[in-house]
């Protein structure tokens, strides 16, 4: 639920201008530090892990709905 509209506009700005490989930012924005282990390794792994957990939970909920998981 974090604001994602900014990146959308940035992407279109980059695509249309073709002059920059990095999106333009609002005045309050900032860039991810290069070579950061947090942003380079930890957070991507966390995103993938949370994505897997999300899929598992959806499968469990669907299993309840379809009767594969006991409905109590």
């Amino acid at each position, binding site marked *: 639920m974090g604001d994602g509209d900014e990146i959308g506009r940035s992407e279109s700005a980059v695509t249309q201008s073709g002059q920059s490989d990095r999106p333009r930012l*609002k005045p309050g924005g900032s860039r991810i530090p290069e070579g950061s282990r947090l942003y380079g390794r930890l957070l991507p792994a966390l995103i993938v892990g949370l994505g897997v957990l*999300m899929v598992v*939970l959806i499968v469990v909920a669907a299993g309840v*709905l379809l009767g594969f998981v006991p409905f109590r």
Partner: protein
Amino acid sequence: MSLNQILPFVSSVIMLIFTLSVFQRYLVRRRLHFLFWAIGLAMFGAGSFAEAYFAISGWSATIFFIWYLFGAALNAAWIGHGSLLLLVRKRWVHVLTGLLIVGSVIAAVLMVQALSKANVAAYVSGVPISEQYRNVMPPINQGGTVRLTTPFFNIYGLLTLAGGALWSAWLFLRKQVLPNRVIGNVLIAAGALSIGFASALTRVGNGSFLYLGELVAAVLMYAGFVMAAAPGTEAEVAGAAQQASAA
């Protein structure tokens, strides 16, 4: 007072502050996704408040209605739909908006029917409602049809709320911009998944982690929202000032 009596109170207070914060943002920016987030968060807070009520008081059909409909069935779908409105600017999203509203009304009607057949005698004071609602609500084939709707709303909510936050975080990370929004969205996804995990445990018969899951969700999602929204503040203030001067 036991932990299960305290946790819903704390969650309610956090969700009240969170809801007001998001609703204030809606009043300033008039964007529909803020309204859906605020409504969904208010439902989440109402569910927590219902748990807090049950923790210190006896049976109430109205509070049980609020707890199940808003706390267990609808809130994730409404918050998640707000995320979808933010991320996808297509007409078909408004069809989903209509379906969500109609589906929510149908669920409310089914909940009224279920309440009329509830086994109130099975309610035990002092036991968390998440651990005994199955004894109170009628089975699906005996008037508890509303229970069938809950997985639909929760799957939709999980997919749009957690999926939307993870997708946003991934986009920002890929573009190497706005690190606060990467972390903010990861926190929001983690919060949504913590309540999703606790709800899944409740659904398969273990409701003892639900209140803790709600508190963790409230804290993580609020922290994520504050973090993700921070850099926009300057631009919003500037935008609001422009609007005021143009008026």
